[in-house]
């Protein structure tokens, strides 16, 4: 059975490694694809057939920031049609960033956990929910 992948947009290799370790720790079997730039994410969404489970996107990215990336995904008919939940992932932030995320009708906003254990729990929380949520691409 093909499990829909998790897409992570992040730039820091240490963080990417942590997420990978956490995913392994909690037994995630789904593929996880990492993108270090919004354009690479967009290319993946527009050139592959997969309907990913979620996009987990850092706000502070080189090049386009997370908000700009979400807007580009929403503006692209092919990418938008996949209806992938777009979840923000950020270090301690300010209120205006959170407001902006919700203005863009995101599907979640999580502060990056401080400990590995919390990271595991947060990832599990995110996956438990979106695995429960029905999606037009994954229903007969």
């Amino acid at each position, binding site marked *: 059975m093909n499990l829909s992948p998790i897409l992570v947009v992040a730039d820091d290799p240490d963080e990417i490694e942590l997420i990978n370790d956490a995913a392994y720790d909690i037994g995630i079997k789904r593929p996880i694809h990492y993108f270090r730039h919004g354009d690479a994410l967009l290319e993946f969404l527009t050139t592959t057939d997969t309907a990913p489970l979620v996009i987990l996107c850092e706000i502070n990215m080189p090049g386009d920031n997370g908000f700009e990336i979400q807007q580009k995904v929403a503006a692209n008919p092919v990418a938008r049609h996949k209806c992938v939940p777009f979840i923000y992932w950020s270090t301690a932030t300010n209120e205006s960033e959170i407001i902006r995320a919700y203005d863009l*009708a995101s599907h979640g*906003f999580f502060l990056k956990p401080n400990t590995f254990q919390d990271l595991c729990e947060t990832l599990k929380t995110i996956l438990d929910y979106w695995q429960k949520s029905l999606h*037009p691409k994954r229903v*007969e």
Partner: protein
Amino acid sequence: MTHLSYMTRIGPVVLINDDKEDIEFIRSAIQTIRPDYQLEIFLTTDEAYNFLLETEVQPFIILCDVMLPAKSGIEFRDQIDANPFLKQKAIPFVFFTSVIGKDKIKKAYRSTIQGYVLKGHTFDQLLKVLDITFTYWENNVHPNNMEYSLWQLG
């Protein structure tokens, strides 16, 4: 070093469902897993809409059935989005239903929804899915439901 920390106040759960038996199951399930939660129940979307406009508290989440008398859940979602005051409240909107049809789900996703969750067939399934849903949104940072405090690290 300065960090932001926050405390979340959980506002009421807004439930829109016209089946009295369903309502009782859901009420009982929420009482079981989140006894401190406040639940506002509406049989129609119009009643819920008026509540959302008038209430001063920030609801935690909207759990809305898809098939409803008069306005459907999907129409209700669009109605909320079309109202600038309600739109900026950005209350997570989750379809909470037994309706599975692919067409309905596709239609639902044309609006901005934050989930499409099946209620399940048994009380245990209901407990589990509500717990997962609440846990997710409890862990989300939200602009209208927070108290900020700035604290310094040593």
